[in-house]
């Protein structure tokens, strides 16, 4: 299982790097999808099959598809790529690189002290997640549903306004 974890984690990091550096929006989104799939695999190896499945269904299967959909609708091509290349000058990488390096150092020291060595002995099934969500985390779930309700009402309103305007 350790080898599976290492491979999945490596793919996730590599795909994320590729995602940041691609000038073409669709290619970047595809790498982000690969990264999400790899993270789902990491969840699965760590003993959270339910979280892994939801990661694929919701992030890779729904949200990223909508991103790709919008990019397709806007149909941004060569000009946008040129613009993106223009923005991503070498100097722009300094700030993010320093911050990422700091995070990496922090992670490295934690690992060196053995703070990351947590065993994944227990598998957390769907029922356990459901009980946690409807028990101690009920309030968070309700707040999230408020947000979604607001989004639904907004979408409904926008759709109606367009229809009246015709």
């Amino acid at each position, binding site marked *: 299982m350790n080898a599976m974890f290492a491979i999945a984690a490596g793919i996730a990091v590599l795909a994320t790097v590729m995602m940041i550096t691609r000038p073409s929006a*669709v*290619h970047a989104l*595809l790498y982000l*999808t690969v990264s999400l799939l790899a993270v789902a695999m990491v969840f699965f190896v760590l003993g959270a*099959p*339910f979280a*892994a*499945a*939801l990661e*694929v*269904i919701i992030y*890779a*299967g*729904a949200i990223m*598809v*909508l991103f*790709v*959909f919008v990019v*397709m*609708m806007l*149909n941004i091509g060569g000009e946008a790529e040129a613009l993106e290349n223009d923005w991503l000058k070498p100097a722009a990488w300094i700030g993010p690189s320093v911050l990422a390096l700091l995070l990496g150092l922090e992670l490295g020291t934690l690992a060196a002290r053995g703070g990351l060595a947590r065993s994944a002995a227990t598998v957390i*099934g*769907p029922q356990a997640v459901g009980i946690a969500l409807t028990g101690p985390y009920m309030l968070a779930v309700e707040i999230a549903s408020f947000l979604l309700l607001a989004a639904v009402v907004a979408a409904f309103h926008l759709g109606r306004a367009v229809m009246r305007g015709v």
Partner: protein
Amino acid sequence: MSQSHAIVAGLLNVVLGLAFLMITAALLTWVERRLLGFFQDRPGPNRVGPFGVLQVAADGIKLLFKQDWIPPFADAGVFVLAPAISMITVMLAMAIIPATPLIGIIGDLNVGLLFFLAMSGLSVYSAVLAGWASNNKYSLLGGMRAAAQMVSYEVFMGLSLVGVVMLAGSFNLTDIVRSQRHMWYVVPQFLGFIVFFLGGIAETHRLPFDLPEGESELGAGFHTEYSGMKFGMFFVGEYIGIMLISAMTTVLFLGGWYGPVLPPFMWFGIKTGLLICFFILLRAALPRPRYDQLMALGWKLLLPLTLLNILVTGALMLGLPGPA
């Protein structure tokens, strides 16, 4: 030693299972054309081999020997990736289906149903990316239709299964079939059954919901630019998709392998086969709706129905005494 034996046996199971799927999907192209011929009062392909069954081989050879062409204006990498996604996702989803407790590629996955939904979610990419990478107006329109249609119908498909999961108390497909020993879920979950099947047709974009590739307005939709074996992969992917939805419907609503007299795998085969024939009958019988009608049906009829179904199922489970 025994561990390596297990690995070899597992690999053999996967290879044989996938080979069986590919061959059945290829044969289905012939079955569909013969059945369509029967429904439309004409012979259908009947020249190559007995009853025309070798038409499959002839088509395969023809596709393989066609020039493997990528349009110069296309995005080559994504263009090649799209048909592969179409086949890989449906084949992976097929892997979790238990034909009987013993026959299946992976069989026992404790999030089996979610895995199926995840794979059908990923299959959207094949149509979307094919449409985008082809760099062609018709393809792009087809890809956009496919994205909107599949993302919408996925919602109802997932919600329609909640009732089944509530009754069975598990995401494991083997457990779901076992809990149907006394009554198939098509009876208590009739609404769920209808919505799931409609969602499945939309998800495989088969007629009458094949608007992403509607010939009369979009050429061939998202696969307009595809030829040779890359087109063949979309084609085989579509047929495995039909098998997948039929097999899932059998497992979730029609009692899987349960049935009198005949051995379990034959019952599974018969139920799945009849559903596949029903898919083909739908293609022969129904006209294509308008795109806005398709979306309106989904959001204005199927979504409220599935929500009502969940509410009623939950209320009955709480209200009725004993194991529901």
